[in-house]
């Protein structure tokens, strides 16, 4: 419904004559959602923030010329100054440079995990929802088993089983965290996609395509998946923020990303014992982490609203 006046009248005068005019020609949902998104302040703010964080992750040199690993114990825990805006940490490393460089691993974990979880979860969910029967039972029960394990505990267990040493390459350490989060995260997306697919499967246009003799593969690719994806997209965006927090929580517990990999979580973890004397060590990475999570949550919220035809 594009016109709020006819919408408000419609709400009081229910007859549907006005309504058909608004929903008459089906434009593609994606295009509609984009038109809608562009006008939301929530979306614009979060998109700007996310662009900044992404730049930070890809080219940290744009934001700081200092080397995060150039440390001097003599400067240990010095508070913020004109020399170092965010101060120095215990080892005398620049907190600002570390916070900037920390974006890369935090966002990498969040992004890769989200992509993997959404891919695995929604393809299995599509199979479970589309084929039903035994396939559904097996997949859904397996998901139940993984779903039953408490998230953080399960991730801890996986990580402790495959521990990282200080000489493990950074990408391996990151991938271990990604795997731990993925193993526990995929059932959510299976459930989401499954119920979405079941809904779409019984809709008229799929019935029509089926009665015209479309083979299952084509049916899934052309009709079912494109029409069931919107909840997955919205939840995935919100989850991205959640996975960044999960990584930080694991690193905080000393089991996720560990030095020499720089991450916000491990920075915070190192800062906690010194909270009384050097709160700046905790403050700055915590702010960056919170804002990064916030922008993904806001983006997800905006996307969810834009993709929800009921709110239109």
């Amino acid at each position, binding site marked *: 419904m594009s016109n*709020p*006046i006819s919408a408000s*009248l419609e709400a009081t*005068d*229910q*007859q*549907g004559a006005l309504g058909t005019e608004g929903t008459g020609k089906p434009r593609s949902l994606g295009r509609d959602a984009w038109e809608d998104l562009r006008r939301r302040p929530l979306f614009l703010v979060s998109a700007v923030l996310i662009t900044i964080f992404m730049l930070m992750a890809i080219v940290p040199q744009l934001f700081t010329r200092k080397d995060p690993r150039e440390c001097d114990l003599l400067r240990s825990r010095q508070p913020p100054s004109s020399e170092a805006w965010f101060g120095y940490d215990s080892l005398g490393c620049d907190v600002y440079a570390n916070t900037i460089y920390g974006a890369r691993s935090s966002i990498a974990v969040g992004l890769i995990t989200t992509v993997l979880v959404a891919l695995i979860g929604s393809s299995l969910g599509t199979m479970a929802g589309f084929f039903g029967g035994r396939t559904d039972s097996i997949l859904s029960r397996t998901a139940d088993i993984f779903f039953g394990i408490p998230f953080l505990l399960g991730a801890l267990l996986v990580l402790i089983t495959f521990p990282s040493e200080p000489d493990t390459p950074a990408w391996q350490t990151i991938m271990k965290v990604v795997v731990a989060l993925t193993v526990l995260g995929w059932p959510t997306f299976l459930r989401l996609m499954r119920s979405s697919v079941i809904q779409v499967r019984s809709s008229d246009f799929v019935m029509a395509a089926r009665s015209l003799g479309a083979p299952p593969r084509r049916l899934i690719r052309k009709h079912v998946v494109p029409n069931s994806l919107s909840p997955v997209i919205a939840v995935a965006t919100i989850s991205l923020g959640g996975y960044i927090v999960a990584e930080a929580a694991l690193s905080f517990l000393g089991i996720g990303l560990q030095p020499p990999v720089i991450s916000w979580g491990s920075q915070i973890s190192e800062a906690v014992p010194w909270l009384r004397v050097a709160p700046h060590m905790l403050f700055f990475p915590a702010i960056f982490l919170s804002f990064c999570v916030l922008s993904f949550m806001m983006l997800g919220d905006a996307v969810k609203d834009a993709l929800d035809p009921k709110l239109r």
Partner: protein
Amino acid sequence: MTTPVIGDPPLLEVRDLQVEFRTREGIARAVNGANYTLHSGETLAVLGESGSGKSVTAQAIMGILDTPPGFVTGGEVLFKGDDLLKMSDEERRALRGESIAMVFQDALSSLNPVFPVGWQIAELFRIHRGMSRRDAMKEALEALERVNIPAAKDRIGDYPHQFSGGMRQRVMIAMAIALRPDLLIADEPTTALDVTVQAQILELMADLQREENMGLILITHDLGVVAEVADKVAVMYAGRIVEQASIEEMFDSPAHPYTVGLMDSIPSLEARAGELKAIKGLPPSLVALPPGCPFEPRCPLAFDLCRQVVPPPIVVGPGRESRCHIAEEVRDGKR
């Protein structure tokens, strides 16, 4: 039709009612001076398409307009001679359910899904009459029996979703007439129902109205419904009442081109396929009403005057009005 005694105020008199919706896109003038009168025992059908203001008028009478965005900006609603719009909120609340009651279109969504139907009817007796839970339940059962719900005693504890559509609408009616109101407003009471059930519900409402000598306002877009139960008709278009007449007069000699169009759009046995006539075009936007007659852009008889001057109500017979510059000629079928 009962003849009113001189000096006795009518049950309901709506005078020049104005309602607007204040939205971001501008002010939508949903009702622009509605006038009608209703006596006890009379049935008035308010006819019009979606967005014509017929439901909004009823909500304004009932005092359940969504404010914001809806505001009553002028006019009077006299109930037994007292202006409802000048009453305090508390006085109006006391009248709702007790003296003026309403039946809505979709009983499934209009009944609270989490309370048993008996409880929802009994609530009226407890709030308005201060009855005990048990006495109120007894009254609720009687109300359900009055609308002929089979085995009402067994169904009093059921939830709305456990009833069929027709039975649910009966529950809705039972709730509306529970306190024996003087005025019943039914907003599209049969639109959501199967055709066979529609007739039963209409018959039930007509019976109850006769027994209780209620005034009944029946809001509908269905001419069949109008023909079946109404004494008189008010046709609404773009927030105005464009024609008022008795039911016979309207069907015999409609005095407004819009009413004529509505009559022509009824499918009849004589008309062959392809001869069904619809009124061309769409109603005007309520945000930007034309300076002249709002029906002018769609009117086959429009001429210069129509584009410039809003037609005033023209009396075209006893108790008959039409807002058309050439109402008499239309009535007589000369144009």
